């Protein structure tokens, strides 16, 4: 069993195809929607956590790619420039998954748990010193 968070981008032409339910049926995968921005007749962005057997997972991903969905894996894609982060906390106010959170309440340093990140990009926009970044495809 594996489980990975992925960001799927559906180009306008295929935005109305039921590709996600296809992969569930065809490859016995389950998914959990973390974030969705889908507009009719426009590009759609869907962040999912997909789980299943490794082989079917890979086939499912391949199926999406064959159908022109562009895929990025969320894991480890969020990055913090440790030399510019000064642990102010602006990002803590917006991170929806507690990937950015203060655990040590004595030093009040801001921790980053990359495995909780869903690549929503809120912290990238909000960080006053631009310490947070995601690769361009997000």
């Amino acid at each position, binding site marked *: 069993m594996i489980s990975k968070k992925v960001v799927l981008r559906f180009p306008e032409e295929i935005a109305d195809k039921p590709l996600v339910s296809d992969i569930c049926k065809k490859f016995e995968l389950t998914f959990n929607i973390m974030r969705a921005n889908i507009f009719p007749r426009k590009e759609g962005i869907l962040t999912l956590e997909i789980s299943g057997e490794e082989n079917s997972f890979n086939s499912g991903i391949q199926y999406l790619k064959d159908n022109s969905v562009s895929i990025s894996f969320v894991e480890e894609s969020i990055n913090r420039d440790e030399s*510019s982060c*000064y*642990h*102010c*906390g*602006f990002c*803590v*106010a*917006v991170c929806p998954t507690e990937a950015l959170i*203060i655990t040590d*309440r004595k*030093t*009040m*340093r801001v921790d980053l748990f990359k495995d909780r990140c869903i690549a929503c990009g*809120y912290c990238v*926009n*909000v960080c*006053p*010193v*631009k310490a947070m970044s995601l690769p361009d495809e997000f």
Partner: protein
Amino acid sequence: MFKVNKTIEEINYKIKHGEAVVVNAEEMIDIVRKNGTVEAAKKVDVVTTGTFGTMCSSGALLNFGHTAPKIKAAKVWLNDVEAYGSLAAVDLYIGASAVKKGDPLNAVHPGRFEYGGGHVIEDLIARKPVRLVAEGYGTDCYPAKRIEMEIFIDDLREATLLNPRNAYQNYSVATNSTDKTIYTYMGVLKPRFSNATYSSAGQLSPLLNDPFYLTIGIGTRIFLGGGIGYVIWHGTQHNPNEERNERGVPKTGAGALAVLGNMKQMNADFIKGASILGYGVSLSVGLGIPIPILNEEIAFFSSVSDEEIDAYIFDYGHDYPLKIDNTYGLTNYKKLKSGFITINGKKVPTAPLSSYSGAIKISETLKQWILDKKFFLTKPSVSLPQSGDYEPLKYLKKYEKNL
């Protein structure tokens, strides 16, 4: 009147001979709890404080030296950020919140405000080149009408950080009652009281450790942006007469400081240009002040802890922009730092905006400077405007009665 009576001269003598006892404001809490105020005042000579947050009302006063031919600069831009040039020929002042030419501002809300005065100041301190464009109208003594050049901080005749209002004594807690997310200088506030933000170093913050400005005044030497600076005046909007708690600590903004320092000694780790989503550009300033422990009352004040510092909660969604005088009650920094406060019976997550770990680093750096005999204390030449509420020993006696 006091049981312990030390002078700045005595403390400086101890610093010079490596005998001074210096602790930070966090360490002072336990020292006073264990030893009492009198013993603590005998034992400790200096308490160091610190704060590191975005402080609007900051800027830099620069003199770029005369060019050939000379110009009387009337309009000036640094990296396309407009500065104020109408001071003399080659003096200028760049405000931290000035935005770069052509910035879309909030046309697409919330605006990103990628670059502005705060960033120019950081770039100069980081010893990066900055492009200067100046325009003049031409006079017989200053014929040039336009110059363009690259400047580096070390080539400037003078580079002075000159901040009219920094180090607010305390600050409001912000939340949002409305149905939509708002983008403020207090960060992003989610709808229907879904979060709250605050912006003070609490128990480490300079003016919270000297709530009646007994040692901090005009002329006080401070840590500013990694270099040495001075308090030059009270901050604009300084209001010593705000409501105070039983420990004499104001429950909202209250005091503030105008400060100045030589930018050439500063360090970009402690001065950062800040882009505040939907709001604008600002400057994050690292500032620390040593408090000389002259008597037991000052020992008492400098031992204030997070749970003894209250702050009012305000609605930045509805009341604040309309200047409606309404609060959602008081909380304190212990609760704020725990990660949750209660507003209208609802548990609301909190986030800081001012770096507490940065404040610790500053108070520790200042401590080390003093221990290394690189930094000596000063006696203010004039006091800051004082609260009508202050009487010597009044708050200490009240506190001891309640022990």
